[in-house]
C-alpha cells in the first residue's frame, strides 16, 4: 500500500499547490513533498515489499533500483527551487509548482508500472505535465522549445503506443489472454509471435528512445534543456530520461524472454554507441553551456544503452550509472542555473571569467564537469569503467574502443566550453548581471550535496544499492 503513497503524495501536493493562494509560500510545497517522497522511497528501498501489491503496479526490484535516485534528485531540485522561485518572483509559479509535483508523482507511477498500457499512459502523462514547466520563462524561445518538445516527443510517444499494441497483438497472436502485464508477457516467453515482437521492439525502442533522447531522436533535447529553468533541466535529464530507460529495459526483458534477446542487445548497442558519437560531435563545437549539458545528457543516455546492451555486469553498471548520472547532472544543471543567472548570457561568446564573478558556482561547475567526464573519484568514473570492463569481458573490444574514443571527444568539447566560460576575464555581458542574484548558501548547498552524493556513491557504494541493482538485473534476465 505504501507504494501507492509514492504516487498519491506528490499528486495531492500538486493539487494543494494548485489551490494554494500565496505565490511566496507555495514553493515550500516542493521540498515538503520531495522530503516525504524520498523518505518513502528509501524506506521501501530498505524494506522492499515481498510481492507487488497489484499486478499492474508495484515497487518491484527495477523500480527499487531506480526510483530512489529520481526522488533524491527531486529533493535536491526542490530545495534549490525555493530560492530560485523567490528570485523569479515576477513569474506566477502556481502552474509550475503543481506541474513539477505532478511530474514527480507520474514519474513514480511510470517507474512502478508493471503493465504495458499503464507504463505508456504514465510516460505520456509525465510528458504532458512537464509542458508547463518548459515554458515557465514565457519567452518566445521557451514556446518554441516547448512546441518542439511536444511534437517530437508526442510522435515518439505515439510510436511507442503503436509498439505497445504490437506487443499486445503478439501476445494475442501467441494465444495469450491479452494480459499486458510484463510478468504475463515474460511468462508467455517464446509463445509470443516473433515478427510482432520484433516490430514492437523497434517501435518501442524508437518511441521511448525519443523520450530518453537517443540520437537521432534527440533533437528536442537541447532546445528544451536550453530554455527550461535549471531545476526542470535537471529533472528532465535525471528523471524523465530514467523513466524512459526503465521502460526500454522492461520491454527488452520481454523481447529477451521471447527469444529475440540477441537482436535487441545488438540494436541497443548500436543505437547507444551512435548516440555517444553524435553527442560527442555536437559537444565538440558547442557554444551554449546549457545546450552543452543537453548533449552531455544524450551522451550519457548512449552510455546507459551501451551498458544495458552488454547485459549482466554491464546492466548492473548501467543502474549504477543511472544514479551517478542523476546526481551529477543535477549538480551541473543547478550550478549552470546559477551561472546563467549571474552571467546574463548563455554562450561562450557572451560569458567568460565566471570564476571571478561567482567563484563558488564556477568551482562547482568545474567539479561537476570533471565528475561528468568520468574523472575519479566521482561516481561516473566507477560506473563507466565498469561498463568498459564488462564490454571487454564480453568480447566487445571494438565497441569499447569506439566508446572510449567518443568519451575522449566529448571530454574535449566539454572542457573547451566550460573553461572558456569559467576562466579568462569577465565580459561586459556579466556587468549587467541579474542584480538580485547573490551566491547565497541556498543556491550553493543543493548542488554541492548532489555532487557529494555522486562522490559517495563512487567511493563507498551502499550495500543495499548494490543488492538492489543485483535484484533488478535478476528480475530483467531471470535465466542465468
Amino acid at each position, binding site marked *: 500500500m505504501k507504494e501507492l503513497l509514492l504516487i498519491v503524495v506528490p499528486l495531492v501536493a500538486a493539487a494543494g499547490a494548485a489551490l494554494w493562494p500565496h505565490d511566496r509560500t507555495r514553493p515550500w510545497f516542493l521540498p515538503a513533498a520531495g522530503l516525504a517522497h524520498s523518505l518513502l522511497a528509501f524506506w521501501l528501498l530498505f524494506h522492499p515489499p515481498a510481492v507487488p501489491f497489484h499486478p499492474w503496479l508495484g515497487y518491484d526490484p527495477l523500480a527499487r533500483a531506480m526510483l530512489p535516485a529520481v526522488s533524491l534528485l527531486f529533493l535536491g531540485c526542490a530545495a534549490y527551487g525555493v530560492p530560485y522561485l523567490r528570485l523569479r518572483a515576477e513569474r506566477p509559479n502556481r502552474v509550475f509548482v503543481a506541474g513539477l509535483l505532478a511530474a514527480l508523482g507520474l514519474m513514480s507511477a511510470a517507474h512502478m508500472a508493471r503493465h504495458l*498500457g*499503464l507504463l*505508456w*499512459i504514465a510516460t*505520456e*502523462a509525465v510528458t*504532458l505535465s512537464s*509542458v508547463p514547466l518548459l*515554458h515557465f520563462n514565457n519567452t*518566445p*524561445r521557451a*514556446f*518554441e*522549445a*516547448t*512546441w*518542439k518538445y*511536444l*511534437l517530437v516527443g*508526442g*510522435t515518439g510517444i*505515439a510510436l511507442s*503506443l*503503436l509498439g505497445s*499494441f*504490437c506487443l*499486445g*497483438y503478439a501476445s*494475442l*497472436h501467441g494465444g*495469450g*489472454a*491479452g494480459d*499486458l502485464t510484463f510478468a504475463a508477457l515474460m511468462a508467455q516467453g517464446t509463445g509470443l*509471435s516473433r*515478427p*510482432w515482437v520484433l*516490430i514492437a521492439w523497434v517501435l518501442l525502442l524508437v518511441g521511448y528512445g525519443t523520450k530518453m533522447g537517443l540520437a537521432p531522436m534527440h533533437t528536442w533535447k*537541447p*532546445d528544451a534543456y*536550453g*530554455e527550461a529553468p535549471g531545476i526542470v533541466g535537471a529533472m528532465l535529464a535525471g528523471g524523465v530520461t530514467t523513466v524512459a530507460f526503465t521502460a526500454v529495459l522492461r520491454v527488452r526483458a520481454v523481447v529477451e524472454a521471447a527469444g529475440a534477446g540477441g537482436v535487441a542487445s545488438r540494436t541497443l548497442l548500436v543505437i547507444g554507441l551512435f548516440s555517444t558519437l553524435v553527442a560527442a560531435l*555536437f559537444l565538440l563545437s558547442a557554444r551554449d553551456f546549457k545546450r552543452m549539458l543537453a548533449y552531455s545528457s544524450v551522451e550519457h543516455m548512449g552510455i546507459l544503452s551501451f551498458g544495458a546492451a552488454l547485459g549482466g555486469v554491464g546492466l548492473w553498471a548501467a543502474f549504477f550509472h543511472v544514479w551517478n548520472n542523476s546526481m551529477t547532472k543535477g549538480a551541473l544543471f543547478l550550478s549552470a542555473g546559477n551561472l546563467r543567472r549571474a552571467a546574463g548570457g548563455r554562450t561562450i561568446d557572451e560569458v567568460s571569467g565566471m570564476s571571478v564573478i561567482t567563484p563558488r558556482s564556477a568551482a562547482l561547475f568545474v567539479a561537476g564537469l570533471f565528475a561528468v567526464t568520468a574523472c575519479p573519484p566521482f561516481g561516473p568514473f566507477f560506473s563507466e569503467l565498469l561498463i568498459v570492463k564488462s564490454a571487454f569481458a564480453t568480447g566487445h573490444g571494438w565497441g569499447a574502443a569506439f566508446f572510449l574514443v567518443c568519451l575522449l571527444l566529448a571530454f574535449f568539447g566539454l572542457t573547451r566550453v566550460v573553461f572558456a566560460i569559467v576562466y579568462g576575464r569577465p565580459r561586459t555581458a556579466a556587468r549587467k548581471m541579474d542584480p538580485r542574484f547573490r551566491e547565497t548558501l541556498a543556491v550553493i548547498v543543493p548542488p554541492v550535496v548532489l555532487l557529494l552524493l555522486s562522490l559517495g556513491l563512487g567511493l563507498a557504494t551502499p550495500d543495499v544499492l548494490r543488492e538492489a541493482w543485483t535484484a533488478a538485473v535478476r528480475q530483467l534476465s531471470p535465466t542465468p
Partner: protein
Amino acid sequence: MGLNLVALGTSRLPSLIRVAALQGMVLGIMPLVIEHELRLMVLVIAAATVAMKGLVIPALLRRAMRTANIDRDLYPLIGFLPSLLLGAAGMIGAVVLARRLPLLPEHRESLLVAGALASVLTGLLLLIGRSKAISQVCGYLILENGIYLFGLLLIHSTPLLVEGGILLDLTVAVFVTGIIVDRIQRAFDSLDTRKLTVLRE
C-alpha cells in the same frame, strides 16, 4: 483509407481539418461495426471517440485557426503530387506488409492493419511535409487515428481502460497543442513553423 490521400492532397487548411474530423468519426463508429453484440461500454467509447475526434478537436483547431487569422493555404515542404505518390506507395506497402504479417484468422480479411499502418504513414508524412503548425497537428491526429485503428484489434482482449487512457491522453495532448499553437501565434504572429528556427545549432 481514401481519406488519407485526400488529406495529403488537400491544399487548404479547413479541408484538412475536415478530413481529420471525418476520419475521427469513422473511427468512432468502427467499434460498433466490429462488435457483434452491443455492450454499453463499447457504446460509451464510441460516443466519446466520435465526440472527441470528430467534434471537439476540430472545433478547437478551427478556433485556433480563426484566432490566428492566417491564410488558409498550406505551404508544403513536400509538394502535393509527390506526397500523394508517397502516400499511395505507403498505402500499398502497408497492404503488402499486412499480408506478410501473421494475423489472427478473424483479422485476415479485414483491412484494419493495412489501414492503420497507412494512416500512420500518412500522419508522419504530413508531419514531415507540411510546415503549418495546425497542419502538423492534423498530421499528428491522423497518426493517432491510425494507432487507434490498430488498437481496435485488441478491443476484445485488452481491458478498455487502456483505450480510455489513450483517448484521454490524446485529447489532452491535442488540447495542450492547441494552447501552444495559440501562444505561438501570439508570440510569432504566424503559425508557420518554418519561422520557429530560433533554437538551432
